[in-house]
C-alpha cells in the first residue's frame, strides 16, 4: 500500500459512493424528470404466440391527456431498425446463426408474453396506462412452444421463417476424434443429464429509459439504466437510427444493479428515443416489476447431456457434452456467444483433461429472450464439469477432494494451453483447495455427519473447483470468434491545476464500487489521497469512449487503461520535474507523489508539477502544457480467476428443508485492490448461485406459454433467512499480463455456488435431483435415503 496516502492498493477503504446512497441522495434514472416530460406505457401481448390481426387505437387516442399512440407500423414507416445481436456464431455447417428480425414493437406477430404491441404516450403515467387499456388488439392465437427440447421436434410450432426448425445455430467446439479416442480407452464413464434452470436477473432497480431531443443542437439524449452507455449509443446510432454518434448522448447515472440484464439494448430505449424525436418532448418509461419479469433478458436455460471418461486411477481422459440452449423468442444483444464461446471454452475447468468436445444447439421458443446473466456461460460450464467430477468420485469411491487434486493443472504448468482453445494465464488450484479444506474442517465432516444422523438429519458436503474467464479479449481474437465489437477499455486521467484529479472511465459502476477502487489505483500510482480523486463514469458526453461493465472486466481492463494513462502522466511529469530541478529526465524518479533526482535530495511534489503544467511560465520549450492523458487498453488474453467453494448442508428429511451449515469460499483473484469490496462481490455472487440451486427458477406453462413466475410472489428471491454467513478466504496468484496483476471477482460466486450446493445436497440425499432443489423435490428424494438408513 502507498505509505503516503494510506488509501492505495490493498486497503479496505470505505466506499466513497456510500454517503449519497445511505442518505437517499443517489440519482437513479427514475429520479430524473425532464421539463415537459411525457410518459410511455407499453401495451404488451398477453399471448405467447399470436398473429396480430388488427389494433384499434381510436379510443386511446381520444382520451384526454394522450399525446400519441404508436404501433410497429409507425416505427417501420420511419425506418427504425430492429434490435440486433452483436456476436455472430458460425455453426457446424459453416453458416452464420439465424438472427430473425426483432422489431422494437411487433409488426404482425407477437412471439412471447410481454412482446411490445403498441405504446401510449401521455402527460402522466396513469393516463398512459388507463388509455393503454382502451386499445383493442385482435389476436389470432397460435400454439406456443416454451421448452427448448420440444421446440426442436418436427411438429413444433415455428417461430420465425428465417430459422427453420426453430434452430438458431448448431455449433460444435473441440476435437471430436481425440475425445472419442479418450472414451474408447476409458475404464469408467460417468454420464449425467443436467438442467441449468432459467433465471430472472432481478436487479432491485427496474429498468428506465428517457428520450429527450434538443432541437437547438439536434442532439438526442437517452437516460438509461445501462451497464455500458457507449455500447448502447453505438447500437442506437449505427444499427437502430442511423444517427451520427456525436448527436446522441447516453447517460447512465446511478444504476441499481445489473448482473448482465442491463448490458443489452432494449425495445423501450429505442421507442423512448424515437418518440422523443418525433414529438419533440422528453418521453419517459419506467418498468414495473411485472414488466421486468417479462422483458429483462433471462439467464441460463440449458438442457445438457454430459459424459466424463476416466482411467482406472481416476485421471480424466476426455469430456464431452451436448447442450440445447434456449434463446427465447428473439436473439438478444449478446445472446449467441453465451452458450457457445463463454461456455464450451471453459469445459477444461481446473483440470488436465486432454480431450474435450461440445456441441450446442441454440433454439428459439415463445419465451423472453435469454442473454448474459452473472457468469454467462461459465456457471453452466462449471456446473457440467463439477457435477461430473463429484459424481465420478462417488462412483469410483474416491474422495472428492483427492480426485480433483489428482487432475489439477500443476502450478508450474502455466501458461497452460487447454484443449478448448484458451490458454490459462496463472493459477495455484491445489493451494486454494487446501485452504478451503482447512477452513471447512474437512477432516471433521464424518463426525458432523454422524451427529446429524443421530438427530434424524441428512448431512452432505459438496465441492466446486471453478474456473472463470474474465476480461474477454484481445479484440482480434474475439473478432475472429464472431464478436462485432472490440473489447478494450478507455480511460482519461486529468489533474486539475490545483491538484485534484478527475478520472474518466468507460467502465460503469452499478454496485461494484469503482468510485473507490479505481480511485485507490490512482492514489497508489500518483501518490494523491483518494479524497482528491473523482471517478467519472456513465455519460458518453463526459467520458471519451468506453465498452462498459460485464464479464468481470472492469478492473482487469478498465483499471489497466487507468494505469496506462497514469504512466503517461508520470512520463510527462518527469520532463516537467527535470526542467524545474535542472536535471536530466533520465535521472528523475517518481515515487509516492514525489519526483526526485536519483541520488540527490532534490525533489518536487506532483502538485507542483501539475500546477506548472497549467501555469507554464518556467517550462520545457518543446512540451505541451496541461496534465491530462488518455489511454486505451486491449488485454493480450483473458484472465482466469479460480478457486474452491465448499458447501455443507443439513437436510431435514421430514420437511425437505435444506439448511446451509457452512459455506467456505477460497478464491484467487490475483492481486486485490480493496479486500472489503472483493469479499462483498463474493457474498453477492454466492447468494445468486444459492438462489439458482435452491430457490429460483422461471416457469412457463407449457400449454399456454404463460409466465407463471411473474412477480416476487411467485419467483423465489433469496432472502436474509435463506442464507448463511459466508466464510471467505483468498489466495493471490497475480495475472501476469496486466499491469495490476488483477483478475476479476464479480461473477465467481455465481459460477461456483450452484455446483457446490447441488453436490452437497445430492451427497446428503444419495440421489440426483435438478435445480432448484426446492423443499418438495428434496423431500421426495429424501424418502428413499431415510428408508435406506432405516434398513441399515
Amino acid at each position, binding site marked *: 500500500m502507498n505509505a503516503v496516502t494510506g488509501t492505495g492498493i490493498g486497503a479496505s477503504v470505505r466506499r466513497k459512493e456510500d454517503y449519497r446512497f445511505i442518505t*437517499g*441522495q*443517489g440519482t437513479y434514472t427514475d*429520479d430524473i424528470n425532464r421539463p415537459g416530460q411525457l410518459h410511455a406505457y407499453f401495451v404488451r401481448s398477453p399471448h405467447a404466440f399470436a398473429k396480430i390481426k388488427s389494433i384499434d387505437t381510436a379510443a386511446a387516442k381520444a382520451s384526454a391527456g394522450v399525446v400519441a399512440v404508436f404501433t410497429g407500423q409507425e416505427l417501420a414507416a420511419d425506418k427504425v431498425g430492429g434490435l440486433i445481436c452483436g456476436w455472430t456464431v458460425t455453426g457446424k455447417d459453416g453458416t452464420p446463426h439465424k438472427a430473425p428480425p426483432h422489431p422494437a414493437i411487433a409488426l404482425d406477430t407477437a412471439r412471447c408474453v410481454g412482446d411490445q404491441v403498441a405504446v401510449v404516450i401521455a402527460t402522466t403515467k396513469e393516463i398512459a396506462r388507463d388509455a393503454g387499456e382502451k386499445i383493442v388488439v385482435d389476436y389470432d392465437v397460435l400454439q406456443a412452444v416454451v421448452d427448448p427440447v420440444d421446440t426442436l421436434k418436427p411438429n413444433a410450432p415455428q417461430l420465425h421463417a428465417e430459422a427453420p426448425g426453430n434452430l438458431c445455430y448448431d455449433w460444435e467446439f473441440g476435437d471430436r476424434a481425440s475425445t472419442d479416442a479418450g472414451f474408447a480407452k476409458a475404464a469408467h464413464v460417468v454420464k449425467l443429464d443436467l438442467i441449468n434452470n432459467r433465471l430472472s436477473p432481478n*436487479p432491485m432497480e*427496474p429498468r428506465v429509459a428517457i428520450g429527450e431531443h434538443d432541437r437547438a443542437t439536434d442532439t438526442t439524449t437517452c437516460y438509461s439504466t445501462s451497464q455500458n452507455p457507449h455500447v448502447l449509443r453505438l447500437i442506437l446510432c449505427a444499427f437502430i437510427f442511423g444517427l451520427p454518434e456525436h448527436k446522441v448522448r447516453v447517460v447512465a447515472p446511478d444504476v*441499481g444493479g445489473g448482473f448482465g440484464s442491463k448490458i443489452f439494448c432494449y425495445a423501450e430505449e429505442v421507442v423512448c428515443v424515437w418518440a422523443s424525436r418525433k414529438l419533440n418532448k422528453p418521453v419517459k418509461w419506467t418498468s414495473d416489476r411485472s414488466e421486468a419479469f417479462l422483458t429483462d433478458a433471462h439467464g441460463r436455460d440449458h438442457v445438457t447431456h454430459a459424459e466424463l471418461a476416466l482411467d482406472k486411477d481416476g485421471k480424466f481422459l476426455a469430456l464431452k457434452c451436448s447442450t440445447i440452449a434456449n434463446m427465447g423468442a428473439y436473439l438478444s444483444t449478446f445472446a449467441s456467444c453465451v452458450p457457445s464461446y463463454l461456455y464450451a471454452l471453459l469445459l477444461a475447468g481446473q483440470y488436465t483433461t486432454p480431450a474435450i468436445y461440445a456441441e450446442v444447439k441454440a433454439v428459439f421458443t415463445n419465451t423472453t429472450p435469454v442473454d448474459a446473466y452473472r457468469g454467462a456461460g461459465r456457471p453452466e460450464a462449471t456446473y457440467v464439469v463439477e457435477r461430473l467430477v463429484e459424481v465420478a468420485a462417488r462412483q469410483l469411491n474416491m474422495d472428492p477432494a483427492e480426485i480433483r487434486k489428482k487432475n489439477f493443472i500443476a502450478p508450474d504448468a502455466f501458461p497452460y494451453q487447454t484443449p478448448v482453445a484458451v490458454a490459462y494465464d496463472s493459477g495455484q488450484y491445489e493451494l486454494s483447495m487446501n485452504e478451503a479444506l482447512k477452513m471447512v474442517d474437512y477432516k471433521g465432516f464424518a463426525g458432523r455427519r454422524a451427529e446429524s444422523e443421530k438427530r434424524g438429519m441428512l448431512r452432505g458436503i459438496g465441492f466446486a473447483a471453478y474456473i472463470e474467464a474474465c476480461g474477454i479479449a484481445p479484440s482480434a481474437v474475439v473478432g475472429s470468434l464472431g464478436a462485432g465489437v472490440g473489447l478494450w477499455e478507455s480511460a482519461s486521467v486529468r489533474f486539475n491545476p490545483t491538484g485534484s484529479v478527475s478520472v474518466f472511465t468507460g467502465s460503469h459502476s452499478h454496485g461494484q464500487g469503482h468510485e473507490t477502487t479505481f480511485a485507490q489505483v490512482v492514489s497508489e500510482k500518483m501518490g494523491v489521497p483518494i479524497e482528491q480523486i473523482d471517478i467519472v463514469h456513465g455519460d458518453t458526453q463526459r467520458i471519451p469512449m468506453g465498452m462498459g461493465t460485464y464479464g468481470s472486466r472492469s478492473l482487469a481492463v478498465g483499471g489497466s487503461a487507468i494505469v496506462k494513462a497514469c504512466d503517461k502522466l508520470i512520463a510527462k511529469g518527469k520532463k516537467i520535474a527535470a526542467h524545474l530541478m535542472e536535471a536530466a529526465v533520465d535521472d528523475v524518479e517518481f515515487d509516492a507523489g514525489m519526483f526526485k533526482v536519483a541520488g540527490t535530495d532534490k525533489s518536487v511534489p506532483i502538485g507542483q508539477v501539475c500546477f506548472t503544467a497549467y501555469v507554464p511560465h518556467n517550462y520545457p520549450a518543446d512540451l505541451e502544457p496541461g496534465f491530462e492523458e488518455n489511454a486505451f487498453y486491449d488485454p493480450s488474453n483473458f484472465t482466469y480467476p479460480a478457486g474452491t467453494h465448499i458447501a455443507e448442508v443439513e437436510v431435514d428429511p421430514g420437511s425437505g428443508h435444506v439448511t446451509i451449515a457452512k459455506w467456505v469460499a477460497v478464491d484467487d483473484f490475483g492481486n486485490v485492490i480493496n479486500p472489503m469490496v472483493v469479499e462483498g462481490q463474493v457474498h453477492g455472487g454466492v447468494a445468486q448461485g444459492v438462489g439458482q440451486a435452491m430457490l429460483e427458477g422461471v416457469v412457463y406453462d407449457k400449454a399456454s406459454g404463460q409466465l407463471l413466475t411473474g412477480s416476487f410472489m411467485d419467483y423465489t428471491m433469496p432472502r436474509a433467512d435463506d*442464507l448463511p454467513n*459466508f466464510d471467505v478466504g483468498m489466495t493471490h496468484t497475480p495475472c501476469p499480463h496486466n499491469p495490476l496483476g488483477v483478475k476479476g471477482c464479480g461473477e465467481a460466486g455465481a459460477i461456483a455456488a450452484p455446483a457446490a450446493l447441488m453436490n452437497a445436497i445430492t451427497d446428503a440425499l444419495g440421489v440426483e435431483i435438478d435445480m432448484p432443489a426446492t423443499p418438495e423435490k428434496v423431500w421426495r428424494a429424501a424418502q428413499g435415503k431415510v428408508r435406506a438408513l432405516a434398513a441399515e
Partner: protein
Amino acid sequence: MATVSMTVNGNKVSRDVEPRTLLVQYIREHLELTGTHVGCDTSQCGACVVHVDGQSVKSCTILAAQAEGSQVTTIEGLAKDGKLHPMQEAFREHHALQCGFCTPGMIMSAIDLVEKNPKLTEEDIRHGLEGNLCRCTGYHNIVKAIAAAAKTMGG
C-alpha cells in the same frame, strides 16, 4: 383531487393529489424526495420502507390519504445536522450496500427492528429482514451492520 397533508422529515407539507395516489408516489413524485425507491409492485421488496408515526411501513402499500396528519420519516430525514444515524454509519462501515437501491428501505426497516428489539440476535435480524430484498450483498454485511448499529443505538 384531494388535499393530503402530513409532516415529512419535520416539515409540514400539503399537496393536492388524485385519491389513488400511493404514499410512495406522494413522497417521490409530489415531494420530490427520491431516496425512497420502488422495486416491485407486490409489496415484496421493501425498497419503499419509510416510518409512519414511528412504525416501518411499505409506502407502496398505503395510500397517501391514509397517512393524512401523520409524522413521516424518510431516508432523507435520518441524518440530523449533518450527523448520520448510527444505522447509516454502520451500513457504510460494514460495506452493507453495493448498488444502493435497496439501501434506504433496508436502513429504515433495520432501525425499526432494533428499536423494537434492542437485544436482537443474528436470527432475529435475518428473520426481521424478510420483507426487504437485496440482490447485491447476500445480506452477510447487512446483518453485520445491523448487529453493530444495535450496539451503538444502546442495545
